[in-house]
């Protein structure tokens, strides 16, 4: 009974991990879809299958994220801010600031030396300040989300969007395509616009280095590079940035079970 699960149900993706003795043994990411309950079940089944366990082997499960309530089999729930902080502290104990770029929100968290949340700010009102902006434009450019970073990294002359709004940005991207502007310059322009919004959010909390970045947005290497340029810092990027919050949830599952 030393296996612990963390499940993070986001608006776009659902993420899950199994850890044992604070070591990551399995992880799984799927699209959240319309039914979060089914997604949560699917993640648990796949995690257990990967490690060849049964449900009874799981000592505790912690759920987090926008859809945490749907993880009916979880022993407890935890706030996503706390889980992200815990997960990042586990991967990068030296990190003092975290940027979490998700599909529906961007969060900036300041960490204490022990990995506790010292302060945080969340931008969730506007798609133009979240990973959704990238999803919208990737759709217009007809490219895979995974190609967005490598494609825009090739741009030498990123376009400047006249708007921070993802809806108006979509129309603007269509106009630029019809004018014959290369896809990479449009993609790089989106990264530039998003990086500028994210950087203002970071500056609101004041950047304390070293700063880590996680969430699906951190998979976009060009976005990471652009934020580094704007903030004039080097960002710590976890090997699998999407599962950091789920990892934090699994760590909380472990510590709360052992402290009982």
């Amino acid at each position, binding site marked *: 009974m030393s296996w612990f699960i963390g499940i993070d149900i986001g*608006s776009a993706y659902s993420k899950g991990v199994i850890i044992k003795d604070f070591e990551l043994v399995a992880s799984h990411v799927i699209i959240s879809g*319309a039914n979060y309950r089914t997604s949560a079940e699917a993640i648990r089944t796949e995690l257990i299958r990967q490690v060849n366990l049964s449900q009874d082997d799981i000592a505790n499960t912690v759920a987090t994220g926008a859809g945490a309530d749907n993880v009916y089999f979880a022993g407890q729930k935890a706030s996503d801010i706390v889980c992200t902080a815990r997960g990042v502290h586990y991967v990068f104990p030296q990190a003092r600031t975290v940027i979490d770029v998700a599909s*529906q929100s961007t969060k900036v968290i300041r960490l204490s030396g022990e990995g506790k949340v010292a302060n945080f700010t969340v931008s969730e*009102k*506007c*798609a*133009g300040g979240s990973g*959704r902006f990238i999803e*919208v434009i990737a759709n217009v450019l007809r490219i895979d989300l995974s190609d967005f970073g490598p494609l825009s990294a090739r741009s030498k002359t990123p376009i400047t969007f006249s*708007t*921070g*709004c*993802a*809806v*108006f940005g979509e129309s603007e991207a269509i*106009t630029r395509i*019809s004018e014959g502007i290369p896809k990479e310059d449009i993609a790089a322009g989106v990264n530039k616009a998003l990086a500028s919004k994210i950087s203002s959010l970071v500056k609101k909390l004041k950047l304390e280095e070293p700063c880590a970045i996680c969430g699906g947005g951190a998979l976009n290497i060009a976005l990471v590079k652009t934020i580094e340029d704007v903030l004039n810092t080097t960002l710590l990027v976890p090997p699998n940035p999407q599962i950091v919050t789920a990892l934090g949830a699994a760590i909380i599952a472990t510590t709360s079970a052992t402290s009982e």
Partner: protein
Amino acid sequence: MYFAGVDIGSTMTKVVLMDKSGNLLSTVKGPTGPEHRQLANEVMRQALEQASLQIDDISYIVATGYGRLNVPFADRQITELSCHARGVSSLFPSVRTAIDIGGQDAKCMKIDKGRLTNFVMNDKCAAGTGRFLEVTATALGIELDDMGDISLKATKKIQISNLCTIFAQQEVVALLSRGENLENIVAGLHGALASRVAALARRLGIEPDVVLTGGVAKNTGMVRAMKGSLGCELFVPEEPLLTGALGAAILASETYMKAVAKSEALPTKSRRLEKATFFS
């Protein structure tokens, strides 16, 4: 003597032709495409045909709207704010506050004795413009033009919790799949847009009479929601899309008549409706 006003908006291009006494000879509306210039020619050609006039018969032409620089045959460009203010006050002389909700922006204008005295606008965020309804209508699988009638059948008020158009798009689909009535959702969308535009107008201070124009004013449900959010009576022109072009035509006539009175020569542009390209 004849005068023309051409208003190239983000969604629709409008032309008004009038004689020197201010009588309307023809009005034409057409969807704005990416090729503004060709469209301006086409809409102008239709307006002339309806009025049985030639382009040479027009003494002065004013272009307005965000595409006003793409009207090759216009003699003068005037901002849409001035044109709207002029057009609205010609229809409602007692107007003090004019609210125009277009496909890509929303403007609130303070008007005193027919003159624009102050304004605020939102063209930064789609959530405060007609685009909010366009995007969510598509998500709900209904026609934009049907939204008004649908919303009038609502039985309860639904609060749309997301401000952002893109997040609201997701929210309405989720509401629908949860079994919420389409009518109630659409009414909720009107309420959300109305409260945002009303907040914009309040920055200027709302003084009666208040006139609502722009394509969104054709939506009866939206007019009702705006009345509710503003807490006052609203006047809507019969043709709420045309006030900008109407104002442009009136300003064309006034500019021309003033020059004639002073015996000044007004520079005018080539009157050819040639096919121009976008990048020329």
